[in-house]
């Protein structure tokens, strides 16, 4: 492998004798490892992950892996042979406990201290915990890791009663899997609709309707004020005084970025580790990528923290390139997908601040696209079983296109010709 050229900037790019430590071993970390070697970095790579598992994809945790139809080995981003061939030191089941940014050292939970020339913080996030009486109930679970799913799967028996707290993507995907497995499922959502954070009411109501058709009970505008009961049964107490019996309770109420280590080290954090368009943090030689970062998005003229596979992959690539002295500024249209029943929802862009929704097709069918506009400019799309609309909209959003709403709605114009 060839060396990276050394940069003429104040911060030298990596040369062959240097060490990169990656704190975290998830999607962003796995991508960074591959990208570092692809960019020609020939030095030492140390991958430190708190979970005792090689980097794996999380989306199947609330889909096929939860359903038991996909074994763990098929979740790995790369097989074990990849890390051997790439000469990566994998320290799994090990956490970074302290960061000395100026001294370029980390301390691990086994007491070891490791020095680095460059550090990538890919620490991801953790499931937000319920904060109410009974939050320590033994039948309450969260779903973020393989270990979480292993603890849940045994309880997914036909006829079992499942209460999901939170009607976001995680809650709804679990509901779909559980309904298919024959459980009695109830979703409790505090907002007026499911997916309230991310979709317009029409799309949210469509998803509620699909779930209800599958036998799921959905209660919106419903808070959870506590969990009663003992080890044999959970009783979820709602804000309006109902008590719902459950054999299993899973809360999917958001993700908190893992920034504590970094805050303690004095790096700038604000809803995530603050980075620039090359994934550089406020400390020289230290980069961050993935769910844990707050980063600039030029398309939306704002700073974002995104929880998506796509962002983790692209920031992993950007950070690796930057470490090697190659500028690949991050400029991406955020996108995301969610599989529920036979529906594939693909969303591109961010709809925050929309003032108009244009529907292409109808929510009476299981195939439509909802386009979100502001001042006539396309911000985002929610495409349900409409992959062409999704792909075309991604390009239109990237170009900040102003587009006539009638065009978007007109099915006589083929989706692939929407750009005109």
């Amino acid at each position: 492998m060839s060396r990276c050229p050394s940069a003429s900037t104040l911060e030298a790019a990596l040369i062959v004798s240097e060490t990169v430590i990656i704190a975290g071993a998830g999607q962003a970390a796995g991508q960074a490892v591959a990208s570092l070697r692809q960019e020609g970095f020939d030095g030492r790579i140390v991958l430190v992950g708190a979970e005792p598992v090689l980097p794996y994809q999380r989306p199947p945790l609330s889909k096929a892996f939860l359903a038991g139809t996909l074994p763990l080995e098929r979740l790995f981003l790369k097989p074990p042979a990849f890390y051997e061939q790439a000469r990566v030191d994998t320290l799994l089941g090990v956490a970074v406990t302290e960061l000395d940014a100026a001294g370029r050292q980390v301390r691990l939970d086994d007491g070891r201290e490791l020095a680095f020339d460059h550090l990538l913080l890919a620490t991801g996030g953790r499931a937000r915990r319920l904060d109410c009486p009974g939050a320590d109930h033994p039948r309450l679970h969260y779903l973020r890791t393989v270990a979480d799913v292993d603890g849940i799967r045994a309880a997914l028996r036909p006829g079992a009663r499942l209460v999901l707290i939170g009607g976001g993507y995680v809650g709804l995907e679990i509901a779909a899997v559980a309904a298919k497995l024959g459980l009695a499922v109830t979703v409790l959502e505090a907002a007026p609709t499911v997916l309230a954070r991310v979709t317009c009411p029409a799309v949210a109501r469509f998803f509620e309707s699909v779930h209800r058709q599958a036998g799921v009970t959905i209660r919106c505008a419903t808070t959870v004020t506590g969990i009663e009961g003992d080890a044999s049964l959970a009783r979820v107490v709602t804000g309006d005084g109902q008590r719902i019996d459950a054999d299993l309770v899973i809360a999917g109420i958001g993700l908190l970025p893992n920034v504590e280590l970094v805050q303690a080290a004095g790096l700038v954090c604000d809803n995530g580790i603050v980075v620039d368009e090359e994934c550089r943090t406020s400390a020289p030689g230290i980069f961050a990528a993935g769910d844990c970062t707050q980063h600039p998005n030029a398309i939306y003229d704002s700073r974002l923290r995104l929880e998506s596979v796509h962002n983790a992959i692209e920031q992993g690539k950007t950070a690796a390139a930057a470490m090697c002295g190659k500028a690949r500024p991050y400029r991406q249209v955020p996108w995301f997908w969610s599989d529920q029943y036979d529906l594939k929802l693909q969303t591109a862009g961010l709809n925050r601040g929309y003032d108009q929704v244009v529907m292409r097709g109808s929510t009476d069918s299981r195939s439509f696209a909802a386009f979100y506009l502001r001042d006539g400019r396309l911000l985002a799309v929610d495409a349900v079983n409409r992959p062409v609309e999704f792909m075309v909209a991604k390009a239109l959003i990237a170009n900040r296109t102003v587009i006539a709403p009638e065009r978007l709605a007109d099915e006589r114009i083929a989706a692939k010709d929407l750009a005109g």
Partner: protein
Amino acid sequence: MTKVTFIEHNGTVRNVEVDDGLSLMEAAVNNLVPGIDGDCGGACACATCHVHIDAAWLDKLPPMEAMENSMIEFAEGRNESSRLGCQIKLSPALDGIVVRTPLGQH
């Protein structure tokens, strides 16, 4: 087990054996065959597992379903031999299949 022959963009030939039921995309990734990204992990949501199937094998594959047919339009260098690797499940019927991988997916 099914044998797959991958031919890289630079002509390198790799003969691998893969468990039945895995996809062509997984076969490539698991055997460190370059040129395949598979960003969405096989969910047919990204079109970055684009491969070219050798002419002799093309019509032995099950036809594309609607999702693959739509997504593959956006794969770079798409031609008649194109398929999305994540949508092709390996089985004894495909033993010996020959697949060409592109230089890159983006």
